[in-house]
């Protein structure tokens, strides 16, 4: 990014609109990058608490944010992600989107439900809580 910064510096500085420290901050601390977010859900909100007895609260989490251009190992992204990024940036094909921020790992969830016939089921389901995000 050095040449980017130097070319920026050559531009005439508008006193009111340009704050150097703010400008540098966006490079040092990436904003809105792909990361895991909490989302606490209670089944009573969905009016499902009559048949989902436990857990009372469920935090499925979700992934949201921008995928940096050179993802590399920090996200555990495959090489394919970089190739897709290049196709997107070179606009080789409009239908190819930028890589997305999606869950990469999950943990299971135990659920206690009352079945329609009145019996009670304890079940353990795979992949119900996102624990890690990736770009791909």
């Amino acid at each position: 990014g050095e040449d980017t910064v130097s070319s920026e510096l050559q531009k005439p500085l508008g006193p009111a609109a340009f704050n150097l420290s703010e400008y540098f901050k966006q490079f040092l601390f990436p904003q809105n990058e792909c990361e895991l977010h909490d989302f606490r859900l209670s089944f009573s909100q969905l009016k499902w608490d009559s048949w989902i007895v436990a857990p009372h609260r469920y935090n499925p989490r979700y992934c949201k944010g921008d995928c940096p251009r050179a993802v590399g190992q920090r996200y555990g992204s495959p090489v394919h992600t970089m190739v897709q990024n290049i196709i997107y940036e070179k606009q080789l094909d409009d239908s190819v989107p930028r890589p997305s921020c999606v869950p990469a790992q999950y943990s299971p969830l135990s659920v206690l439900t009352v079945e329609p016939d009145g019996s009670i089921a304890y079940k353990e389901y795979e992949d119900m809580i996102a624990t890690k995000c990736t770009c791909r």
Partner: protein
Amino acid sequence: SQASREEAQIATSAELESEAEPWSLPQLPGGRGRSGLLSPLFKVLCDGSGGASGLQADSGALRYMKRLYKVYATKEGIPKSNRSHLYNTVRLFTPSIQHKQASVDQATGAVQSVGLQFNLDRVTAVEHPLKSVLLYTVSDSASFPSAAQCMCHLVWTEPEPSSQMLPRPPHSFSFESQPKSRKKYKWVEVDVTPLLQPLVASAKRSIQVSVNFTCVRDQLQPPSARDSPISLVPPSLLLYLNDRSAHAYHGWYSLHNKGSPLQGPGQRGPSACPPGGGAARAVRSRHRR
């Protein structure tokens, strides 16, 4: 060993299952398709109507299953990592009562003969039965002796005679009643796995059984306790199952597989029952050394 063969079968069938299972096909509740969480989720996504409605659960059964949930899962609802059992599904069925006779025998205490019918419609084809238990809820703990010698007589009564099945002889076995909880409610579990296994595994949708349950009091009890009759609610049926489908959690498989180099052909695999199996414990101690 049997257990490791079973694990291999489960792993291959889980792979087959995931390939064959069309995720995108929603199946509505009420049919024999998916049970538990997925059908209602599909229903919500398909036609927007909320969740599954149905019969009320029995409060005693609900109390037991909430307690079981706390034992098996963390507050966040994640299955606890220290589990050592193979099943990822536990179903509790409350019976419909066919007939009931009760008489009190001074020597042996209350004798109750109860005809019960359990409707197992919710057990799906991918849920493999591992253990079956008759669960007695004793709400009046004062009248139930903490230690008693109990005798349970089970007589299977088939809903319709089927040519392949030979009439089953009555089964009776005795056990020391070990109420499971010190609190107001007690539960007595009677393991009927060997007796019920063929019926549940044969995908029978309805099981009828006549149960006689007698308890001989412990002589050390004060006379007053001995005289008061035992009040027993007809038992529920607890099925421990292993759901082999791709969306069920098989964490135990990876947990136990991590230890697989230790498990040579001569060693037993993980127990299908709750911890306490001697062999399972023996494997662990060797591992530590």
